């Protein structure tokens, strides 16, 4: 068991190592280096030399990679080109803002998804299922920027209930953030809830057709006792992995949502740093977002392991 956990963690680190290689090699192979890309037309003479000196582009690539990687492990991402400040200072408030947005959406989304998933599964192909399923399918297929734009159009412009565009400085306090994130949270949790509710639904349906549930029905176990004792614990276990994947998948979608609502989080930083052609920040973001993805998946794997008695004994026997 312990060995298995260690192995999973090791695999996660290998994945991150490859990610760092890919981003580094990618930037290296694609035309233009950090300096010529950033300076664009002014990339000549003294300005270029100074930039190359500052980023240390005059040393061989593998030395730069080792240098960069060892700094990243110590938590130092180097200097941002456009802001002329340490990347850590750029990232700090953005990470906080994104965390607030993500955690509020998750806190609303997961319980809602479980309830909706169970309702749609228990009343399968009846009216509640058809209604909820239609809505969830719609909100999971429509692109984030469309649902976000429609939310602004309907709630903010036509109904006038909420401000459509969030105007928050990137170092806003927690309270300032909370009062302004209603629409972004609705936009994000709508898609997330839809995905997870579909998974919970199919998982519950699968368990309901299993032998032991049929057996419980034959034995005359009361309906709700059967639902809570036999179906849910078994159905929610596989859903953990899906929840993790959905959260990780949303990292991409959050970029778009943050842009639509002008929310100063990590996602908008992605767009800003790429528009500014600030390659050091882009590299830092790639590693951070990939770490979040790997981390979430790792936690989900470990949770499934802990909660599944069959997997546990299997590993001990091995």
């Amino acid at each position, binding site marked *: 068991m312990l060995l298995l956990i260690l192995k999973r963690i090791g695999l996660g680190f290998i994945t991150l190592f490859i990610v760092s290689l890919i981003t580094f090699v990618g930037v290296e192979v694609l035309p233009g280096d950090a300096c010529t890309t950033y300076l664009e037309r002014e990339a000549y003479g003294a300005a270029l030399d100074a930039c190359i000196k500052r980023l240390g582009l005059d040393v061989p690539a593998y030395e730069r990679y080792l240098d960069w990687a060892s700094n990243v492990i110590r938590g130092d991402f180097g200097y941002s080109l456009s802001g002329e400040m340490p990347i850590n200072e750029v990232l700090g408030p953005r990470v906080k803002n994104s965390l607030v947005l993500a955690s509020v959406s998750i806190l609303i989304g997961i319980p809602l998804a479980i309830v909706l998933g169970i309702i749609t599964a228990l009343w399968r192909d009846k009216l509640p299922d058809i209604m909820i399923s239609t809505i969830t*399918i719609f909100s999971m297929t429509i692109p984030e*920027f469309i649902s976000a734009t429609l939310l602004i159009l309907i709630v903010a412009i036509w109904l006038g209930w909420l401000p459509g565009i969030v105007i928050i400085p990137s170092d806003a306090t927690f309270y300032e953030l909370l009062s302004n994130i209603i629409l972004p949270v609705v936009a994000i949790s709508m898609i997330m809830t839809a995905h997870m509710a579909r*998974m919970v639904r199919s998982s519950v349906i699968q368990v309901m057709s299993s032998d032991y549930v049929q057996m419980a029905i034959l034995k005359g176990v009361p309906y709700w006792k059967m639902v809570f004792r036999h179906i849910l614990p078994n159905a929610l276990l596989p859903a953990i992995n899906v929840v993790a994947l959905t959260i990780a998948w949303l990292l*991409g979608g959050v970029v778009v949502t943050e*842009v639509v609502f002008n929310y100063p989080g990590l996602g908008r930083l992605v767009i800003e740093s790429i528009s500014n052609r600030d390659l050091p920040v882009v590299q830092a973001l790639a590693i951070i*977002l990939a770490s979040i993805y*790997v981390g979430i998946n790792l936690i989900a794997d470990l949770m499934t392991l802990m909660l599944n008695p069959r997997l546990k004994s299997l590993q001990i026997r091995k």
Partner: protein
Amino acid sequence: MESNLITEDKQKNKLEKAFEILKTMASKPSGLIGLTIVLLHVVLALISPYIAPYDYKAISPNTMLLAPSAEHWFGTDSLGRDVFTRTILGGRTALTVTFFGSLIALLWGGLLGIFCGLVGGKIDDVVMRVVDAFLSIPWILAMLLIVSLLGTSTEVLIPALGFFYGKGIVRVARAATHDVIAKDFIVSARARGHSNMSIIWNEIIPNVRDAILVEGAMRWSWMLLGFSSLSFLGFGVSPPTPDWGLMISNARGLMSFAYWSVIAPIVGLSSLIIGINLTADAFAKALGIDRSTKAPV
């Protein structure tokens, strides 16, 4: 003569099979709706240059932000261009880019997946690690980086999208290959001394084709979503190309008084994505492949 008959027979069988799959897909309301929407979009994309009432890039200050009327069915945008013209031409852009992108994704993802599943061992381990690593970089970051360094022409967008949406297909193709590889007919083909290439072509591909095609159909709708998001962010096709994502992003700031110029592309894009999704689901069901427990990756 005889061999001719056999090939003719085979071809007829293939056509019949395809027709039967279509019939099964259309037998359920959701499949029928999906097929109809996709067909409508494809036909519209093919004929749109001939039926478009106006020039899509003709800017005119006299017709700025007109409300829908008999002359301009969906109104005009902030540069005085006809929204109806741009909306029907937008489908052409979206379908062309994502169709060829999906084709590339299917080809390289499918072949690499089959190869890994067949070879196994160290090579398989290494390739799957690299694929995992690519999967853990958010697609949007990677796409944005490529596009900002190489430019936003369709020659860059199509292979880039094809590459990034193909990595998920690698996994599906590999898993499907694993399922067939232990079967008797592969073992006997090996025993007959067939080469790896011949085994892949004659034994594995016919058996994993369905799973890969279903995955490809699903990826198609995700690619459409990704492509339009890129355009929306200003990193997709460049103006004045008629494109839904671009139209929505341009019209967004003015939607408090000119909502029509944002509604038309929203309806176009949403209906096509929903149509492809419903079709892909019906396709999977008609082929007997269960995708309901798959997560979005």
